[in-house]
């Protein structure tokens, strides 16, 4: 019975573009899925490891620019570029972690924000690499076919499937990680970093690992962002507001859970994007409101709360 419903769900997911071929609806789902990846990425470092970062846009932007530059200058197909974007993001995470992990709690958060701002300014001014404020634009995506059918990049459908794949990968990565020893160690670090050291956990290595995975996923999402929106500039991909949105989606959804980011994205992105369609500005008002309500009444997040309510006792 369980297997059947799982298969049914998978089929449903795959069939969405045919069931509801409305472009805005598909755009909404694509955004939800993309932000699920970003929220999941943040959740690994901010949720599981308890290291609250306000500068994760750095990795999103790194992935976006890597993908764009590889495609525009070297002709590397964006789906490979996305993976490269993730790798580049994970690499720049290493020196960032080296600097920022010396600090704790709110100081760590502020330092990540400082780093993100510095990176944004560098991207804005290193024009030979990034074209600065002018940004980078994809005019035509690769001429490829899938099983004999040429891919129509004007339609949302190919992007939908790509988004499903990366969202699935992100959720799966979180699920697998949470079951490993490393996952358990991260939760210990989240609770009390000194005690974690005292029981033999190499907390620096653990945090760096979490950061690398987190940065990789954010970088991949950044690459997708670049491909989907086809235009990026430093203020679009390195903005503080993007970092903040990632935090909010993860927290409102439910930190340290596997599905929290998905739930958070469903709530916040749907409301936000729909609002943005009609009012153009101010859509983050929902993020703010949800965050305040969550911290006050449901610090474990929407999904966290649901899980508590659904579990038999305890």
């Amino acid at each position, binding site marked *: 019975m369980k297997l059947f419903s799982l298969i049914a769900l998978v089929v449903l997911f795959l069939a969405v573009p045919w069931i509801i071929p409305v472009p805005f609806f598909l755009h909404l789902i694509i955004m939800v899925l993309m932000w699920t990846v970003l929220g999941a990425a943040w959740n690994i470092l901010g949720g599981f490891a308890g290291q*609250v970062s306000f500068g994760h846009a750095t990795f999103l932007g790194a992935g976006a620019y890597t993908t764009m530059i590889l495609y525009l200058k070297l002709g590397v197909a964006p789906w490979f570029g996305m993976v490269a974007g993730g790798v580049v993001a994970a690499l720049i995470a290493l020196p960032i972690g080296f600097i920022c992990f010396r600090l704790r709690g709110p100081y760590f958060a502020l330092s990540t924000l400082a780093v993100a*701002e510095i990176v944004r300014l560098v991207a804005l001014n290193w024009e030979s690499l990034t074209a600065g404020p002018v940004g980078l634009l994809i005019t035509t995506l690769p001429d490829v076919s899938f099983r004999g059918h040429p891919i129509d990049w004007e339609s949302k459908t190919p992007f939908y499937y790509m988004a499903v794949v990366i969202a699935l990968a992100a959720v799966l990565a979180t699920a697998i990680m949470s079951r490993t020893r490393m996952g358990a160690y991260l939760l210990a670090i989240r609770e009390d970093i000194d005690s974690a050291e005292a029981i033999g956990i190499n907390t620096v290595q653990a945090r760096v690992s979490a950061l690398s995975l987190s940065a990789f996923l954010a970088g991949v999402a950044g690459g997708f962002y670049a491909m989907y929106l086809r235009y990026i500039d430093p203020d679009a991909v390195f903005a503080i507001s993007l970092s903040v949105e990632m935090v909010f989606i993860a927290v409102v959804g439910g930190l340290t859970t596997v599905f929290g980011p998905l739930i958070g994205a469903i709530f916040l992105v749907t409301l936000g994007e729909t609002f943005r369609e009609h009012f153009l500005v101010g859509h983050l*008002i929902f993020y703010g409101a949800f965050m305040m309500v969550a911290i006050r009444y449901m610090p474990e997040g929407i999904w966290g709360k649901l899980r508590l309510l659904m579990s038999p006792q305890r």
Partner: protein
Amino acid sequence: MRARRADGAHAIPNAGMETFVQSMVSGILTGSLYAMIGIGLTIIFGVMRIINMAHGDMVMLGMYGAFWAHAAWKIDPFLSILIWIPGAFILGGITYRFLLRKIVPGGELNTLLYTAGLSLFIANLALLIWTGDYRTIKLPYAIMPLRPFGIAVPIPLAIAFGMAILVTAGLYWFLVHTDTGRAVRATSQEPEAAALMGVDVERITIVTFALGTALACGAGVLLAPSLYLYPTVGEILVAKCFVIVVLGGLGSVPGAIAGGLLLGVVESLGAVYVSVPYKDGIGFVIFLLVLLFRPSGLFGVGKS
């Protein structure tokens, strides 16, 4: 996301003593307002041990308060501070009493996230109500700058500077010469000892938060005639002011003043001698360096 000068001042590329002094003066003027915002932030941290991410949005509210007082009621923005500072004090008190009070016991990180939510809420509400159009306040007496000793000093900034000094002096008097003020300082250094000595910590907390908010709003009012106003200015401001507060030592008022002035000067000099686009980043680079090598701030006092 950079606060832009409405008077259009640019960095002038020819070097020389005049340019240096000019940029020092600009830096100190702007820095005094950074300092005022920073003082509010630092006393809130000192007493409540929380990072108030919505602080920058309080500045924004002050800016718009001044703008609307001028646009709707024809009140000179600098006079409107008489309305807005008490108003902000009350707003701060209400914010603490009805929103923050139950959140603070949940810990530093929870409060940080909550105030981040509050910040987003306020900024986006402002975006909805007042739109994202840049606003400016045009004052008839502010068109030509003063030129003492040949240094261009925009009048609104000069007035702002003067009033910021007055406010800071008033605050200093309050902290040193009144019972409540002394209680604020005591609680900011040792909350438990202060409670044992009979300080009503709850009352001091609400006073401090209200005071911090009033300072932020006041600085916003003073800055309004000198900047382009837009609703999301709080975002970058709060980041910069945390740089100040951490550099000066969390909880230290003199540290915030020094930090604010320093940031103003560094940004101003940076715009001239390094490059205009990177000037916003200089503060952050220094911030990171200080955090790494002198975690207690440039002037000591902070907590690690």
